[in-house]
């Protein structure tokens, strides 16, 4: 039986090494005191903060959803569940604001279902 990978997928280590940066150098670029923070994010022991994710985008030019696909997929899953729940709750609405919200939920659900699920692989 094939074993399943439960490790968190993140491309920070890959991009850091592509550019020959050490964890210390990346930590100092991102404004952290030590390399421990970078190491923990790379090894999936800590989820990246908004500041870390944006700092990575500034340094490497990779959006957070592509740099941390697993974290993004987890957030997306949770948000989509809530969106779907609200989408159903607003199914009988006739008010203009309700219809506008339904339109947003439909668009969000369409976006989410139109791309492959990264959680399935990991």
């Amino acid at each position, binding site marked *: *039986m*094939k*074993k*399943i*990978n439960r*490790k968190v*997928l993140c*491309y920070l*280590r*890959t*991009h850091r*090494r*592509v550019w*020959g940066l050490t964890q210390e150098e990346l930590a100092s670029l991102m404004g952290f005191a030590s390399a421990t923070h970078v190491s923990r994010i790379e090894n999936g022991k800590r989820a990246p903060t908004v500041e870390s994710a944006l700092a990575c985008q500034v340094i490497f030019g*990779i959006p957070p*959803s*592509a*740099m941390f*696909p697993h974290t993004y997929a987890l957030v997306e899953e949770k948000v989509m569940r809530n969106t779907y729940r609200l989408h159903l709750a607003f199914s009988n609405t006739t008010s203009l604001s309700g219809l506008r919200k339904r339109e947003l939920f439909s668009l969000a659900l369409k976006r989410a279902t139109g*791309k*492959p699920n*990264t959680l399935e*692989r990991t």
Partner: protein
Amino acid sequence: MTHDNLRNLVLSIYPFSRGFAFVLFEGPEAPFDWGVKEIKEKHKNTKTLDEIRKIIDRYRPEVLVVEDTTGKDSRRTSRIRKLYRMLVHLAEAEYVELYRCSKTEVKECFASVGAGTKYEIAKAIATQIPAFAHRLPRLRKIWMSEDPRQSLFDAAALGLTYFARHIRSPYAEDVSS
């Protein structure tokens, strides 16, 4: 590197006298992780196997690519040959598909880009994969020992040969003809 479609990981291993090198590929032009691990103490094979097991446990690759040492062109030591046999069992135990490619296959694969020697192959890989460019060792003279960084390119060559045989890669067209 692709981020939208996550592909199956391919792990190529190249053991050498002082340790082993590994490259984990997402695709022929997309290395995910790579490195050279030096193992200097006694019981090198056991320790090497432990390290490789850790990598497999961490990334769960679909395919493990190693050199085929059964051919006449292979000149690996008995220790390395034994390690390869141990790797076959490890791949079975970890449910990882094993692919073995000979030195001749690697040379055939890179002949299309005019690379015949190990150094020329390493240069071709460095051109193909910029992430490895800064790790290219100097040209080895006959009185010099091999640079450990060369093994990284040997591991990458195995992985790229696998891709050339199985999916389209920059080298695939010439290999098939």
